[in-house]
Structures are given as structure tokens and as C-alpha cells.
């Protein structure tokens, strides 16, 4: 592995330790890109982002430059223009935004200021997930220092969420930021035209925004030559599950799962056999072990029947019962469904119900077809991607590990107590019984 040549952009300078202090960030050239962008002007800066073909790092992979170009110009806009940074990182398997805030908070702030300049924003909001208390404190400290040094010309408000996965969905996030239940809006209109407080709004993920300073520094063309075609640049891959060294690894798009899992992560834990790979958080369909040499870029993973999403790679070894894993994932989506649209609210519940019956050995063979049928009825029929995520993920476990599902129905769990997931429970189990601090929901 050509470790020495690996480009590090988002975490650049933080290899030996975090860059929380402004002074330390300045030493590695921090805030020079902001200066440069101010000299270039908004139009030229946007051009660099467009040339870089920077695709959104939150999961959907939409090009940031294109999204920014949808916003009206200040002359056309009748309302203030807002920049919203999505730091509501809640996808199971994802922990990269947390690391960016923890180690290079000023790079995020610099990226926010450049992006705000590009879209002529009046104000910026960072919506950070409520559980990230420490990261909130780190970001606030960095922000205070940057403000004190006169580096923040467009005001930034850091807003804490309060525990709801769905608020990572961009329109649910806007609703939540407006002081409402975090329930997605119907699209169109898109936030570029009708966003926060019905004003033009650009929403991007933490990693996307934190990449912007480097693009300005090295230029869009140079950036676009890193990675592969249509998946440019580097990515912070969150590696977790049955692997020796989990953690975030910054690699260029196009590196293989093997490079990440074996090269960076030290291979499957305990020298056990690989069973499957979740490429982009629990929402993405599972890939069988033979896909380990697949290139980690948007198009390749999509061609293999899944998606790179937030680049959160979960390693599954041979001890895992796939029915239990599918059930745990199904419970998550059921628990986090906001309840606004019927296919998701009802569908996620049905999916959980059938999976539970299969896992407990109470299901009939026909119910496996019923499960596929329910997934089908959810897919593509919901207001946002949450229902789709559940349906696609669960269907993928049935597709690749059907024999395990059939064995459960006929003889019960073949793994028994030996499964790495044996006895795992979820908040749903508690809610069924009545959970402390919450209203009886079911």
C-alpha cells in the first residue's frame, strides 16, 4: 500500500494531534483559503467548487457546486439567504463529522465562511446532533476564538438537536431548526428556493463544507484529479464492526474495501472470516464478502447494488446471525420513523414485526414473501429516504442470506448463543413495555 503518498485533505495537519486551537490551525495555513476566496470573489470561488466536482458527503452525493448554483442571487432573492450545515450525524456506522469537529473545528468554520461568501448568505446555522455535547463545546470554543480574531464575517449560530435520527434529512432538519417536530417536507420546492423560514437555503454536510478550504487552496482542477471520475477527492471512511482497528481513515475515492479493512483496519477481528460489508451506514444494502475488492466510489458501489452513502463501512464476520442483524436494523428504522407518511410509519412496523417472528422461530415460510412484499410497498412511496432505507437494507439481507432466513423458519436460529448478536435489544423493546421518561407509544 502506498501509504506515504496518500493525500490527506480534510484532516490535513492533524495527523500528529488535533488542531483545536486557532494558533495551531494557523500554523498549517489555516484561514488562508478564506482570505484567498475573499480576494477571488464569490463567483470565482464557486467556479473552483464546481470544477472540483465535490459531491455531498452526507449520503446523497449531490454536487455541492450545482446545489449552490440553484440559489437565487442576492439581487433576485427577496428574503435573506441562509447556509445550514448538517452536523446531525446519526446514521448507524457514521462518526466522521464528530471527528472533523473534534480535530479540525476551524477547518469547518473556515469552510462555512467561504461557502457563505459564495452564496451571499446572511447567516449560518450548524445543526449538531444533541448527543454530541463534547463536540458542541469544542466547536463553540473554536468559534469564539475565530470570532475574537475577526475571522467570522457571516454570523454562525450553533443549534443543538435533541435526539431524532430523522433530523439528518435536510427538510426535517429545517423543520426542527424552526422549532417544530422534525418531519420531512414534501419536495419540491427544494431548500435552495424555499428553505429555512421559507428563504433560499443551502444545506450541506460537515465533511462537504470542511473540504471547501482545501479546494480553494489547491484549486478545483487539482482536487478533481484526486480520487476517480465522478467521485473526486478524499473521503473520511468510518470503519467499524468486526475489525481489528476501527476508526476514521481518510482515503481517496476509488480505494478498495480491502485496502480500508485490511490495510487500514488490520483485517477482520480475531482472524475470523468476513461475511458481509455494509458500505454506507445501516441504510445501505449489505454486500457479500466476495465484494471486498470493490472500489469505494459512488458509481462502483451503486453498480454492485448498494450505495456509498456516508461512507460508513461496517464489517460483519462469520459469527453474525443475519436475521438478528436485519431485525436490529429494522427496529432502528421503526423507532426513528417520524410517522408523517403512512407507508413508512406502517411499513417499518410491519417489517419489524415479521423479522421478529422469523428471529423467534414463529414465522411460516410464506411470511418471507410477505416481508419482501412489504418492503416493495414501502420502497419509493415515502416522503423521504427513511422508509426506503429500511426496505432496501432489509431486502438485501434476505437476498444475500436467504438460506439463513429459511433455516430460522424451519429450525430456529442456527447460531444460537454463538451469534455475535445473541441477546441484542433495542429501544423498541423498551418502548413496547413502557419506557421511563416517555409516553407509552405503542
Amino acid at each position, binding site marked *: 500500500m502506498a501509504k506515504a503518498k496518500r493525500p490527506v485533505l480534510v484532516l490535513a495537519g492533524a495527523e500528529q494531534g488535533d488542531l483545536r486551537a486557532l494558533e495551531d490551525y494557523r500554523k498549517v495555513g489555516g484561514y488562508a483559503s478564506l482570505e484567498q476566496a475573499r480576494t477571488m470573489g464569490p463567483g470565482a470561488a464557486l467556479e473552483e467548487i464546481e470544477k472540483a466536482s465535490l459531491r455531498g458527503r452526507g449520503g446523497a452525493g449531490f454536487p455541492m457546486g450545482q446545489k449552490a448554483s440553484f440559489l437565487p442571487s442576492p439581487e433576485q432573492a427577496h428574503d435573506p439567504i441562509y447556509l445550514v450545515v448538517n452536523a446531525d450525524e*446519526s446514521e*448507524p456506522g457514521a462518526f466522521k463529522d464528530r471527528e472533523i469537529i473534534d480535530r479540525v473545528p476551524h477547518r469547518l468554520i473556515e469552510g462555512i465562511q467561504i461557502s457563505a461568501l459564495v452564496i451571499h448568505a446572511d447567516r449560518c446555522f450548524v445543526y449538531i446532533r444533541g*448527543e454530541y455535547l463534547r463536540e458542541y463545546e469544542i466547536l463553540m470554543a473554536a468559534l469564539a476564538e475565530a470570532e475574537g480574531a475577526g475571522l467570522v464575517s457571516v454570523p454562525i449560530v450553533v443549534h*443543538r438537536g*435533541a435526539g*431524532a435520527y430523522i433530523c439528518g434529512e435536510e427538510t426535517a432538519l429545517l423543520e426542527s431548526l424552526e422549532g417544530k417536530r422534525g418531519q420531512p417536507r414534501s419536495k419540491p420546492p427544494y431548500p435552495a428556493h424555499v428553505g429555512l423560514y421559507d428563504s433560499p437555503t443551502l444545506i450541506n454536510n460537515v465533511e462537504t463544507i470542511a473540504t471547501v478550504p482545501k479546494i480553494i487552496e489547491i484549486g478545483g482542477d487539482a482536487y478533481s484529479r484526486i480520487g476517480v471520475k465522478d467521485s473526486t477527492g478524499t473521503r473520511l471512511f468510518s470503519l467499524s464492526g468486526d475489525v481489528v482497528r476501527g476508526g476514521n481513515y481518510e482515503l481517496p475515492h476509488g480505494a478498495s474495501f480491502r485496502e480500508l479493512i485490511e490495510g487500514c483496519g488490520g483485517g477482520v477481528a480475531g482472524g475470523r472470516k468476513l461475511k458481509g460489508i455494509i458500505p454506507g451506514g445501516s441504510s445501505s444494502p449489505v454486500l457479500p464478502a466476495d465484494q471486498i475488492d470493490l472500489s469505494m466510489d459512488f458509481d462502483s458501489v451503486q453498480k454492485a447494488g448498494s450505495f456509498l452513502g456516508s461512507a460508513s463501512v461496517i464489517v460483519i464476520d462469520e459469527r453474525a446471525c443475519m436475521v438478528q442483524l436485519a431485525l436490529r436494523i429494522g427496529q432502528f428504522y421503526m423507532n426513528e420513523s417520524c410517522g408523517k407518511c403512512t407507508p413508512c410509519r406502517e411499513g417499518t412496523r410491519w417489517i419489524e414485526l415479521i423479522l421478529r417472528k422469523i428471529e423467534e422461530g414463529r414465522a411460516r415460510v410464506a411470511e418471507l414473501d410477505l416481508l419482501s412484499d412489504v418492503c416493495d410497498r414501502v420502497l419509493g412511496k415515502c416522503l423521504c429516504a427513511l422508509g426506503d432505507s429500511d426496505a432496501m437494507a432489509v431486502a438485501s439481507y434476505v437476498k444475500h442470506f436467504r438460506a439463513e432466513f429459511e433455516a430460522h423458519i424451519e429450525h430456529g436460529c442456527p447460531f444460537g448463543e454463538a451469534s455475535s448478536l445473541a441477546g441484542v435489544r433495542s*429501544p423498541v423493546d423498551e418502548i413496547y413495555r413502557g419506557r*421511563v421518561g416517555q409516553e407509552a407509544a405503542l
Partner: protein
Amino acid sequence: MAELRTEIRELADRYPERKSALLPALRLAQERYGHLTPDALREVASALGTTPAYCRGIASFYDMFHLAPVGEHIIDVCTNASCALVGAAQVLEAFERELGITAGETTPDGSVTLRSAECLGGCGCGTVVSIDERYRQPVKPEDVPAIVEELRRG
């Protein structure tokens, strides 16, 4: 508590529309009251010009708000995919044994609430346990007695 009202008004000034301050206001009220009591909801509602019912409707949507009493300390054990694969079930069981309660309950003395949690975003190094919103990771079952002892000693 005139003071809480003032603090909420100050929060509201940071936003173009004051209703945006609802989440931080509820958090503040919860810190003051322990959980979101009818009084707490009334206070937030009045400071932000909305109704207690609206505030309750918002609070019930979010996991971090409590509409009923909870323990002095809250232990959240992540049991989502990444942590589940590396033994979260055994960590949760160890807490149950040590505390003498089942997940979703509070100890009889009201000191600790134990819950299983959805992904907390520390997947690379599981099992992740959040105690009073501070993460500990990785937590192994054998670490649990010392953690509980530490909480008991305050």
C-alpha cells in the same frame, strides 16, 4: 422562575424567529426541573409565545426530552449495528446486573436510569456508553462494576 424566562428570551434573540429557540429552551427547562413538568412546559410556552400543548408535542418527538421523571443519572448503552456486533448486549446485561434493573427502568432510589440507545456515533470503538451525555468508549462488560460504583459514590 423569572430567571429561566429571561434566559429563554436571550436564546430567542439568536434566531430570526423566536420559535427556533424551542429546543434549547426545552433543554434549559429540563435542566432546571429534572424533567418537563407541566410547569416547565408552561414557562417555556409563555416565554416563546406559544402553548404548553405545542411544547409537549415537540418534546415528545425527541429522545433527549423527558416528559416523566427519570433518574439523577442516565446511562445510554448503544446497541445499534456496530456496537451490537462487538458485544453491546453483554454490556447492557452487565449494567442490568449491577444496577438490579431492566433496561428502560430507573433504580428504586431514583439515582440511575438505564436505557439501550440507537447509534451514538462512536462506532469505531464500541461499545459506546453515554453517561449523562458524556461518552465512554470502548466499554466492556468487565468495566461496568467500576462505572456503576463511580456513579454511586457521586
